[in-house]
């Protein structure tokens, strides 16, 4: 059988339903084989869009996302998407075409050393040099991407490999000598953790992206209720517990609420689950939660002790560990602590000025109109307002580029999420700058009838950078004005064949959202022309501790 045909059959065996990509010379054979398959292919308009879409698909569904690209420029265009998936531990497999084996190393037409380029941003990658190993590598790629701490895997397939003749002999199981993720938490460690919890007077749970990856939301909520402990989340952990739950304090870190940051800082025990204590979450490490002991539950041993000292590490799968932990702890009331947190909560709510047309208002209204929608975000102020004001109920409801902070992620990710969950409303909360970075995918959405919604918080600026210039660079606004108030996103949307709406003032927001609701089956772009001076507050200034959080207008 032609290797390309065997390859596509292998994808079918892996349960792949959809692939995002763009064909080209080196991967033609595989596209030819795909022609006979039931696997749906979505031709994106840029390979970055394909990788982000695969990533969004993976995050929304929990399944592995798949992207194809040709050699050379096709492959290099996937790099940002791969790095993005790597930083946020998202399971995607990227297959790239490569020039024929005999040409590798000769600087042949459209040759790029994509395995070399992506080495530090993949969980693993392969150059297939022997057609007989192709199917085994496919099996390994899906296995590695989706197990342990998930991440992107790239497989580079030379053209003559895909043309070769091989047997279809797909392995049902594989053993990798050097890859054996540990899922069971050590019983001794769980016991130690339970002891710390029972002793603690001010416990708090810090939930990261690992909670949803492990599908441990139910267990996390149960743990919080059993202790009981308040829960703060990282940006990636948003939705680990319903944000309507009375114990949920929302997200912490640079732009988290003051009360969440205070609670984390003043706690005497942090139960961290599936998070990596990034600088955006904990501020200055030296000033971080001085009184707290730390229990760190993570599947990746390398995360333990990397950024903060840990008292009780537990390596393994969050779902299993939490369900065991729940069994060995008892409810204990901690009145004083509860009171204190309630006080902070009442005293320092998230707030914003209601004058003029504020971006935060748009988010609040979007949340009111579409409480169950999957939200993706771009990067910048839009992302932080979305995180602050869109309260999510469900685990995989909030999808954002946390680690890499990739402008241009949200829209193609929304597309991927919508393909994964066609019955859910999917909204990209966008900035004008970010949306322009992958706006070409509007053509894809229209062509394949993928009715995602884009809400642009159009402030005419690279707003988050402008905010830093205002606060920390003496208002010297170097290169951040992008003048998007002169751009008609409505007309652009129309030009692509999508619906466009322009909203000039706060009083028009509700009627616009009603129109969005009525147009369930078409892609819609809403251009909210918000006040450009709005800033994201509160804020932990860079280099400061979480308790140094400042408020602003």
């Amino acid at each position, binding site marked *: 059988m032609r290797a390309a045909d065997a390859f596509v059959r292998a994808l079918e065996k892996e349960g792949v339903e959809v692939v995002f990509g763009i064909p080209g010379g080196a991967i033609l054979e595989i596209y030819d084989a795909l022609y006979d398959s039931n696997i749906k292919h979505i031709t994106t308009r840029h390979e970055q869009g394909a990788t982000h879409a695969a990533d969004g698909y993976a995050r929304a569904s929990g399944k592995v996302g798949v992207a194809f690209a040709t050699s050379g420029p096709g492959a290099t265009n996937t790099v940002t998407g791969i790095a993005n998936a790597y930083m946020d531990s998202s399971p995607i497999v990227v297959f790239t075409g490569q020039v024929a084996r005999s040409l590798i190393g000769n600087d042949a037409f459209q040759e790029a050393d994509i395995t*070399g380029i992506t080495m530090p941003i993949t969980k693993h990658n392969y150059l297939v040099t022997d057609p007989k190993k192709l199917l085994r590598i496919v099996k390994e790629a899906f296995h590695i991407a989706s197990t342990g701490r998930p991440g992107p895997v790239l497989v580079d397939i030379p053209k003559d490999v895909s043309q070769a003749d091989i047997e279809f002999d797909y392995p049902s199981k594989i053993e990798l*000598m*050097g890859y054996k993720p540990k899922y069971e938490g050590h019983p001794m460690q769980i016991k130690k953790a339970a002891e710390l919890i029972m002793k603690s007077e001010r416990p708090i749970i810090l939930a990261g992206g690992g909670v949803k990856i492990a599908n441990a939301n139910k267990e996390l909520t149960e743990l919080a209720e059993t202790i009981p402990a308040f829960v703060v989340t990282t940006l990636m952990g948003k939705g680990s517990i319903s944000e309507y739950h009375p114990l949920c304090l929302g997200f912490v870190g640079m732009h988290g609420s003051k009360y969440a940051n205070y609670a984390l800082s003043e706690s005497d025990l942090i139960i961290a689950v599936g998070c990596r204590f990034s600088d955006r979450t904990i501020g200055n490490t030296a000033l971080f939660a001085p009184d707290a002991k730390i229990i760190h539950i993570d599947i990746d041993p390398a995360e333990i*002790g*990397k950024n903060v000292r840990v008292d009780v590490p537990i390596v393994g799968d969050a779902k299993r560990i939490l369900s065991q932990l729940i069994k060995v702890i008892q409810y204990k009331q901690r009145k004083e602590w509860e009171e204190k947190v309630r006080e902070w909560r009442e005293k320092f709510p998230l707030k914003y000025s209601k004058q003029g047309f504020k971006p935060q208002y748009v988010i609040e209204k979007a949340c009111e109109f579409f409480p169950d929608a999957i939200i993706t975000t771009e990067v910048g102020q839009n992302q932080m307002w979305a995180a602050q004001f869109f309260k999510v109920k469900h685990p995989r409801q909030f999808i954002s580029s946390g680690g890499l902070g990739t402008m241009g992620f949200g829209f193609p990710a929304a597309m991927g999420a919508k393909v994964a969950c066609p019955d859910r409303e999917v909204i990209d909360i966008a900035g004008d700058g970010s949306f322009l970075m992958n706006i070409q995918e509007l053509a894809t959405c229209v062509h394949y009838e993928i009715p995602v919604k884009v809400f642009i918080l159009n402030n005419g600026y690279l707003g988050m950078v402008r905010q830093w210039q205002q606060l920390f660079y003496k208002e010297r606004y170097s290169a951040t004005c992008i003048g998007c108030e002169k751009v008609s996103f409505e007309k652009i949307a129309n030009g692509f064949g999508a619906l466009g709406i322009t909203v000039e003032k706060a009083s028009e927001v509700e009627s616009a959202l009603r129109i969005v609701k009525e147009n369930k089956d078409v892609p819609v772009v809403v251009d909210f022309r918000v006040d450009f001076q709005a800033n994201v507050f509160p804020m932990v200034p860079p280099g400061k501790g979480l308790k140094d959080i400042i408020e602003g207008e």
Partner: protein
Amino acid sequence: MKYTIAVLVENKPGVLARVASLFRRRGFNIESLTVGTTEREDLSRMTIVVNGDEKVLEQVTKQLNKLIEVIKVSDVTMNSVERELCLIRVNSPPEKRGEIIELTNIFRGRIVDVAKDSFIIEITGDEDKINAFIDLMRIYGIKEVARTGKVAMVRGGRNSEK
């Protein structure tokens, strides 16, 4: 502090590049790195000497373990036999030859090449011994030094990998 770690890896193309790339990306400092085959055809062994504190060692170990093709990482800094081989080309004017030969013998080295006015000396041992010998040779004028980097094995009956 210097740590010596033994890394058992799959014998596949690209593994060295992966390990080197990891050290570069994470900012770990490699003092020396050697690779060679082992008792098993499908496995190679790297001996890496890394500079840093305990925290660095812990991260190096954990990050190496994350590489799919890395099978086992062991710290062999303590209680191990360490060897390095060194070739030295040193000036040997006729009146100094006797002295140099004698020193070489004391260090259990061997003269492996003799030219009109220079020797190549081979010497094996741990790092301190080789450093000491090189120091001694300086007065004669060293023309060239090539060191292999260190290999190491834990003392006693069990494999370093276990």
